[in-house]
């Protein structure tokens, strides 16, 4: 037995009070952990999207907020073939559809594509099954996560109003696309959208060399005023910057939550120290140094902090995992660094919360303390 063990045993004296102090830290750390794992998930999803896009450009109608609202003339494809900087061209029609399956995902973004889509994505794009042919009807390639959520596999058929689609393949990109996108033959998409033969939503192009992307952009934009060329990378870089700001906000808010937990520890320890004033007097009368008494109080605060942080971490992981199950587009990522950060932050603030009670206890005069003054 030593001072450390004695102090930890003290935690058992007022179980409810200790429990509430622990709960304060648990909630704060849980909040930090769950929000940070979601942030990590978003960041890594965006980074992976960046790798996946590998420099593709999207030509859309000037000022379109979303590809779904854009209409581009399909004859532009012929024009683009003359440009030597372009390696592959994929005309695409975007269709947003709601699903009626209860409990499953509620929305899906269908992209009507031709065979040339295969030339603008990576060779490992399809995970199981295969591409459909552009002349097929009622075929679909689903993102891996939306397929999981719908519970459909290759070869099965399901309804996306107004058509039944048969799954020919499952793609996986480890990005948000996996949770929201299905690829269908271009004519099917055109039929659903009621577009004419010469209309598509966007044209996606793959440059021969990513360095030539700017040249393609000015080629298109100088010749067709009504179109704009966007680099998804730019959007993603913008998103990453916003995420950085969001991350700081997350830290700030959950930091405040943990701080409140720390104040809870100060309160609990202060009450405990005041309650035990005669005992502290006795400890000093029997030869405990001021630092022994202070150390003992800090160990108690640290005990509360460590227990609280461990539970907070576990509950935070459970919370973000649950959030992912409810919101399929949400990606969470568990990184050791995030756990270490939340843990160290929580334990640090707990220790900080113990400082004032520790000082108060260590400065008590033995004679006055033993009389309970």
């Amino acid at each position: 037995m030593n001072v450390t063990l004695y102090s930890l045993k003290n935690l058992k004296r007022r179980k409810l009070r200790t429990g509430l102090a622990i709960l304060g830290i648990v909630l704060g750390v849980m909040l930090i952990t769950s929000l940070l794992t979601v942030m990590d998930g978003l960041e890594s999803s965006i980074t992976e999207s960046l790798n996946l896009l590998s420099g593709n450009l999207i030509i859309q109608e000037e000022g379109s907020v979303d590809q779904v609202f854009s209409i581009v003339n399909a004859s532009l494809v012929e024009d683009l073939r003359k440009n030597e900087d372009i390696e592959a061209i994929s005309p695409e029609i975007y269709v947003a559809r709601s699903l009626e399956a209860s409990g499953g995902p509620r929305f899906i973004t269908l992209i009507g594509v031709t065979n040339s889509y295969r030339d603008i994505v990576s060779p490992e794009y399809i995970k199981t099954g295969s591409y459909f042919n552009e002349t097929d009807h009622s075929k679909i390639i689903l993102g891996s996560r939306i397929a999981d959520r719908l519970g459909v596999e290759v070869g099965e058929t399901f309804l996306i109003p107004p058509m039944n689609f048969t799954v020919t393949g499952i793609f996986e990109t480890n990005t948000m696309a996996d949770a929201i996108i299905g690829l269908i033959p271009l004519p099917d998409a055109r039929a659903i959208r009621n577009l004419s033969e010469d209309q598509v939503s966007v044209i996606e192009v793959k440059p021969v060399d990513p360095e030539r992307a700017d040249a393609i952009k000015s080629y298109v934009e100088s010749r067709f005023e009504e179109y704009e060329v966007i680099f998804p990378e730019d959007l993603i870089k913008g998103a990453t910057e916003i995420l950085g700001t969001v991350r700081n906000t997350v830290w700030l808010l959950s930091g405040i939550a943990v701080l409140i937990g720390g104040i809870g520890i100060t309160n609990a320890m202060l009450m405990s120290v005041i309650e035990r004033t005669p005992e502290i007097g006795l400890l000093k009368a029997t030869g405990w140094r001021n630092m022994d008494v202070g150390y003992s109080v800090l160990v108690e605060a640290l005990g509360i902090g460590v227990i609280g942080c461990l539970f907070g971490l576990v509950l935070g992981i459970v919370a973000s995992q649950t959030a992912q199950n409810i919101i399929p587009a949400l990606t969470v990522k568990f990184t050791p660094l995030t756990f270490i950060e939340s843990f160290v932050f929580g334990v640090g603030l707990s220790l900080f919360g113990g400082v004032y009670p520790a000082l108060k206890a260590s400065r008590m005069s033995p004679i006055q303390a033993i009389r309970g003054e």
Partner: protein
Amino acid sequence: MAEEVIRTVAVTKNYRLGRSVIHALRGVSFKVTPSEFLSIVGPSGSGKTTLLNLLGALDLPTSGKVFLDGVDLTQVPERKLYAVRRNKVGFVFQHFYLIQTLTTIENVLVPVLPVKNNKQFRKRAEELLSTIGLKERMTHKPNQLSGGEQQRVAVCRALINNPKVLFCDEITGELDSATGEKIIGLLQKINQIEGVTTIFVTHDPTVSSKTDRTITLEDGKITSDKSSSNP
């Protein structure tokens, strides 16, 4: 100079209470030789407990000198006084101040918890507890013990560090007279076995009647110092 474990020279202690100054001790000088078994008596407010606090290195006098085992306590810086308390003195108080979460033997070991390599004290604790008749109660919690037993645990706790002097502040105050007498008897036995100087502060005449020497304090001064020929 005769062998002495305690010597005070013209000790005074003043307290400030609001605007007035209270003269708790007004020049107290006496000596105690090793292994003495004595009591300090006097009415409330006579300065008994103040004197005990000064002798036990819990407090420092306003003027005068206090020597404990050859060390002038008035020359020891306040932050070093703990070492005197840890190594040279033991205290038993009216209230037992046992820690409810700890067992009997753990309570006895409380003073030495901050000492490094304190395993050696465990054997001492076991010996003390069996001397005092609590061998069977070592793993009990305080709430499983009677008042007399709890005070005996507190006595063992005060003796764990082999002190030169054991200070007992109104230790029978919370016990019935039979239990109180039993405790005094045990302390007498320990005084004989271990030779530890034992000083009682009490207003209980049955306690002082059992000690070899009685110092009477009144109004901060010693008014009588009698050795009993019939302990």
